[in-house]
């Protein structure tokens, strides 16, 4: 079984490294998940992670890439809601990686 250890606590991950229990998510967990992906989270990352959590709260699903771009453009403007910006932040796979770091399930419509 995949696990993630943050301080004294251990969290269960699925085979792709996503949190099994979405309630386990915290800022520390996000930082640890990012570190496991060799990524240091900056304010530009956090902005997208918060946006994603908002998306999930509203629609109860993880967006594929296109809806993620569309939603980001809608909420943060086109200079951030474009594939270049999101690809740079999340190593070319924004829908999958950002969902993972935001503590959301793997996007089901993203093959």
């Amino acid at each position: 079984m995949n696990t993630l250890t943050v301080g004294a606590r251990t969290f269960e991950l699925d085979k792709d490294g996503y949190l099994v229990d979405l309630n386990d998510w915290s800022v520390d967990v996000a930082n640890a998940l990012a570190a496991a992906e060799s990524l240091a989270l900056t304010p530009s990352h956090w902005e997208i992670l918060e946006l994603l959590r908002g998306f999930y709260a509203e629609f109860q699903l993880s967006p594929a890439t296109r809806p993620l771009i569309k939603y980001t453009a809608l909420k943060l403007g086109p200079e951030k809601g474009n594939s270049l910006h999101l690809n740079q932040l999340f190593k070319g796979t924004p829908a999958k990686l950002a969902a993972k770091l935001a503590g959301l399930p793997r996007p089901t419509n993203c093959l």
Partner: protein
Amino acid sequence: MSKSLLVISRQAPWSGPSAREALDIVLAGGAFDLPIGLLFMDDGVFQLAPHQDAKAVQQKDLGANLQALGLFGIDDVFACHHSLTARGLTHPVNAQPLSSEDISKLIDRYDQVITL
């Protein structure tokens, strides 16, 4: 040019996997920018009833998912007027009501149809 697809969703939201599967087809198609339409008819229109509580039956919130259709590029969302009125649904969420004749024309417009 991709073939266009009309998905007809005609099962009630919590009766089995059909409603979820129809939505998954539509969202997957939308994510790939396929020309896709979604039509609710028969008990499928119950998916459009407001203020449902998916948690009460330990299900995912289909109604919330339906709100995301626009972001997935799905703008052609319709509901059978006959099915709506037969079930006393006067305020369906985010779907354009169509008469039986208009549904017949709608099906003609698409290259393929999947009814679930």
